[in-house]
């Protein structure tokens, strides 16, 4: 019997795992399972170019002509519903199963929804291509958009919607947006982009309920204020798609728990990307990372673990970017709340600067706004300072 690897998940992490298998000379059967009917596509543009209408579906496609040579066995439009740890069989929603010698878990995450808003028209989350198509259709009708959550997705949707001419209000529970990823000081700086471009930002207030029958009409805040809304976007984070593994014996701990090399506690099963909670030597605990570059790079390590090869890869420095109101925000490294933040180039007031986060006098992270050249140099410097994986 030919050896088989099942890759569960057909987005960036899953596709990257399939490519890594072939790049690392695996010549068995590779089955790629995806719950969406679409071929792998790129998600970052969904809140930006695709939502704005400047990107087409073809622009989003991740696959290239070179992928045909990978000889992958695609099972799209069929969700995985279970994994048997003994036989390493992946059960699919259509009743079939894929028996495999190795399994790569890459089922990603889904948008967290606001409880009690199911069935109310005009209320959106944004994670999938279908989400983006539906949201764009509603945005094109114009009117008032209320974005719940001022994280990156919320901020990018607000920016795109302003570009489409909507009246936009962003509501954030926390006193300062983006304090988690950027720290309070830089979060506040980046949040000023909203006011610069005519978006109202209301911080430190929760949402009490959505008002409307059949279709949303307003958002009622915890302080009693009522915001008229033709469209609502809920951007309050993502939850890993791991419930299907509940009976598999794979340990779940805020995601599929893995070691630094992506191995789960079930032999022959590795996990990557947004669904994985992987041991981070830097943080001293397992962390679930939702960054695009992480989903791109981590499968190289996971596949090496699965095949028993050694790629000698250095752990990548966490990196993410955002684009809002024409500004490019880039962040690399691992920040802590006690870090000193120093602007080393440009100025926050000009909305073009580079800020370095330092701990014990050592740079640990860097934030750039419209400073791609300098940022890239700092990101590289952080990378070369990383020790190799044990």
């Amino acid at each position, binding site marked *: 019997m030919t050896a088989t690897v099942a890759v569960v998940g057909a987005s960036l992490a899953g596709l990257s795992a399939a490519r890594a298998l072939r790049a690392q000379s695996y010549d068995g059967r590779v089955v790629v399972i995806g719950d969406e009917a679409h071929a792998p596509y*790129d998600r970052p543009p969904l809140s930006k170019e695709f939502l704005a209408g400047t990107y087409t579906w073809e622009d989003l496609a*991740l696959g290239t002509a070179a992928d045909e040579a990978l000889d992958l066995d695609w099972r799209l439009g069929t969700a995985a519903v279970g994994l048997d740890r003994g036989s390493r069989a992946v059960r699919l929603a259509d009743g079939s199963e894929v028996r495999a010698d190795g399994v790569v878990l890459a089922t990603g995450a889904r948008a967290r929804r606001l409880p009690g808003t199911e069935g109310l028209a005009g209320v959106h989350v944004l994670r999938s291509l279908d989400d983006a198509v539906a949201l764009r259709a509603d945005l094109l009708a114009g009117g008032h958009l209320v974005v719940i959550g001022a994280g990156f997705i919320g901020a990018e949707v607000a920016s795109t919607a302003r570009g489409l001419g909507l009246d936009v209000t962003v509501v954030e529970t926390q006193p300062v947006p983006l304090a988690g990823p950027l720290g309070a000081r830089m979060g506040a700086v980046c949040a000023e982009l909203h006011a610069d471009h005519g978006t109202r930002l209301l911080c430190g207030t929760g949402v009490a309920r959505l008002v409307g029958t059949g279709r949303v009409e307003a958002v009622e805040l915890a302080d009693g204020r009522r915001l008229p809304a033709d469209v609502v976007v809920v951007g309050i984070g993502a939850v890993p798609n791991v419930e299907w593994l509940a009976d598999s014996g794979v340990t779940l701990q805020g995601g599929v728990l893995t070691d630094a090399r992506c191995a789960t506690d079930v032999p022959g099963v590795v996990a990557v990307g947004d669904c994985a909670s992987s041991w981070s030597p830097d943080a001293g605990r397992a962390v679930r990372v939702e960054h695009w570059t992480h989903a*791109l790079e981590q499968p190289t390590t996971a596949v090496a673990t699965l095949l028993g090869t050694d790629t000698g890869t250095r752990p990548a420095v966490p990196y993410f970017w955002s684009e809002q109101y024409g500004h*490019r925000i*880039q962040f690399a490294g691992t920040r802590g709340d006690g870090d000193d933040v120093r602007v080393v180039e440009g100025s926050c007031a000009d909305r073009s600067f580079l800020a370095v986060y330092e701990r014990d006098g050592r740079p640990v992270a860097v934030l750039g706004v419209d400073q791609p*050249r300098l*940022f*890239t140099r700092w990101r590289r410097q952080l990378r070369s300072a990383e020790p190799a994986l044990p």
Partner: protein
Amino acid sequence: MVPVCPTDALPPGEAIRVTADVPAPVAVFNVDGEFYAIDDTCTHQDASLADGWLEGCAVECPLHASCFDLRTGMPSGPPAKTPVRTHAVTVVDGVVHLQVGVAAEGAA
């Protein structure tokens, strides 16, 4: 041919963005004394590859980390899917010159 700069103004490991007398911006790189030129704008999104990171004969886009081979213009992985055009570079009397529209030798 478009004169770019004297060779000593573009030391090894550095890049320069050329916008004058070219139909579209071109990035010229010095890799250990060899000069290479490619379209400056990443085929994925609007970013200047001259701002990118040079490693060996590849440049990494400063925004989304697409890598392009300077000799062939080919991307090595996502998000870019389309190659950038290469342009021939010659050095005449100590000045780097660009032959825009003439693909470099060995390019795709």
